[in-house]
């Protein structure tokens, strides 16, 4: 399933600072009476590339969706870039404009062109002048290697292209942190690589990234930390080398044998 990552990764640029980007303490979340996230503690430093893995229903997506408050947590604290997430809408919008998110199903705006998708938030949230926003958008579209599609509508693009536009759209807000929620799960195998390449490039430039994915090749090549979740809790975290070669918990071993076994 997972494509081997052939590219040579330059880890020298990928320095991790001491500054804390995200701090999650004793965070709990329930859906009704179902306890989805149980006592989550996680500190992410600037420049870290974290991959979250785990079986479906383990709460990985819910966890990263709490970081930009697409989901509300009921207990504990989440501090993003120095701002604590509470019910204060102003703070939420501030955090959201600093945190980019890429979704499994792209969620591009189908009624707007690729370029308009990319300039919408900078113009309306950041109040960037249109000309400047378009220039920035073209720069990021070039970076994800689809500047020639700028005038098309999302419905005219392939899945991989759409996901790259979605990444460019997030980058146009010049976010400090990027969240990826299974970015390649809805893609044909042929298109997974082009999206992963874009993400690797982003990692090399020092972006703070949290990525929920089943692409273990990507985790090995890019992540500095792999987190394994099961039943709403963090079961194990380690460097990718240790995590894959020497998993400690039984649950992790079972999971790895299932996804890497064939």
């Amino acid at each position: 399933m997972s494509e081997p990552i052939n590219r040579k990764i330059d880890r020298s640029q990928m320095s991790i600072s001491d500054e804390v980007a995200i701090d999650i303490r004793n965070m709990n979340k329930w859906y009704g009476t179902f306890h989805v996230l149980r006592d989550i503690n996680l500190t992410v430093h600037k420049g870290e590339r974290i991959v979250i893995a785990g079986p479906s229903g383990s709460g990985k997506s819910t966890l990263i969706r709490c970081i930009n408050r697409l989901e509300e947590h009921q207990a504990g604290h989440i501090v993003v870039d120095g701002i604590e997430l509470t019910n204060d809408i102003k703070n939420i919008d501030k955090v959201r404009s600093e945190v980019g998110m890429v979704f499994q199903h792209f969620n591009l705006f189908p009624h707007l062109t690729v370029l308009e998708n990319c300039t919408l938030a900078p113009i309306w949230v950041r109040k960037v002048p249109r000309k400047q926003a378009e220039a920035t958008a073209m720069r990021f579209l070039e970076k994800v290697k689809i500047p020639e599609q700028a005038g098309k509508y999302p419905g005219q693009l392939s899945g991989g292209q759409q996901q790259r536009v979605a990444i460019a759209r997030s980058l146009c807000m010049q976010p400090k942190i990027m969240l990826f929620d299974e970015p390649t799960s809805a893609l044909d195998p042929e298109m997974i690589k082009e999206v992963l390449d874009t993400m690797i490039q982003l990692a090399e430039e020092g972006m703070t990234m949290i990525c929920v994915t089943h692409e273990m090749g990507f985790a090995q090549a890019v992540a500095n930390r792999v987190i394994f979740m099961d039943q709403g809790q963090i079961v194990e975290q380690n460097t990718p080398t240790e995590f894959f070669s020497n998993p400690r918990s039984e649950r992790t071993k079972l999971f790895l044998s299932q996804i890497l076994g064939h």
Partner: protein
Amino acid sequence: MSDTHAQTVAYVRDTMLPAAAPPLRESGAVRWLRENLFSGPVNTILTILGLLIVWFLVATFWDWFAHSVWNASSLSECREIIAATWGEGARGACFAVIRERWNQYVFGFYPQSLYWRPTMTFGLLMVALAPVLFSASLTIRRVVLVITAVVTLWAMSVLGAPVGWLLFSAAVLVAGLLASERNIAWLLPFSAIYPLLGVWFLWGGSLWGPIFVLVGPLLGWVAWRMLSGVSPLLATVAALLVTLLFWMGLAGEAARDAENILSLSIESVRSDRFGGFLLSLTIGVAGIALSLPLGIMLALARRSDMFLIKSLAVIFIEFIRGVPLITLLFVASLLLNYFLPPGTSFDIILRVIIMVTIFAAAYMAEVIRGGLAALPRGQYEAADALGLDYWKAQRLIVLPQALKISIPGIVSTFIGMFKDTTLVTFVGLYDPLKSMSDAVRANIAWKGIYWEPFVFVGAIFFLICFGMSRYSMYLERRLQRGHR
């Protein structure tokens, strides 16, 4: 097949096939008939049955239409002409009544010398609508605006419009055409003030009234600007309050004083002189323009997380939808006056417009709610994740898509509402279908004429509604954005 064999599994293609043209289908009328009308016994029987029904209808009504008389001064004269031409006992339509009384069907009892005013109002309406309805295509705008200009100016001069107003209309129409050629958005300010201009053209009186009505929202905007930094909610409430207080307190007096200083009056026309299609179109256009924004607000309110707002919207929608329109119209004509402070005279057409608007808005809200519900959750999440606030997300992401999905339903509601304007006959207004025909029949010359006015009025309603329907299909096609 030549180099593959059933017993060998391995196969390698050495040349790739180029794309080929599809086979030429046998075509022609015979094939079409066989496929669509006579494909099987059931289809054949249905085809024959359908043809019989069409034949029966045409045979029944054909001579009535074919024998129609357009030149006569009374019903009895019509009958004489038909008897003389087609023999005793022949049936025929007497459309002469339309030729004689068309002006009443179009303008009601509007003063004959002022017919040019509604004509001008309608012509300028097209200019005001151009940036809203036909903004995309220069060709369509050009055709619509040129035809409008020619027809309006011709009709106005035939109806005896004063030269000054003729020049004014010509100026606006030409300016509209020029703006459409350069940048259609320039016309938007005209569209914004058009409702007040239109009211003034139709009802006449002092121009200061509409001007001071316009001042209300301007003051509200100033209040909003001053307070928006403090709290958006407070600013909105303050803006609404300032506007309403100005309208209720100062506007009337200010307009009277201004009129005394500088008179800007044209002959005023009372609401009970309105009738026919003038009345239907006035109520219909106002209702359409007002019910869409109100419907959008109600639909958003109904989907709101705020309990009170949501409950109010649900109660409003369910109550209005649960009550027949005629009830609301009776409320407008009779009950509303009891509730208003004594001495306030509230125009009957305005009251009817309000009732028709809230009635249509309740239906509209449900249609739009359907469109909102059809949007994938991911669209809301993507808007949230980019940091767009609620109103920006609604305006830029959600509504453009939800309204596009809802176009067929919205236009159906518009069409239904436009046809419902004939119900104003029950509150004593001269709708074209019933009251106007009754008024025509009250004259001894046309006593007993029945079907012809219905056919005529029905045909005009059909043309307008069919036009709306075609427009909605054009809009759907225009907003197509590839496959999703």
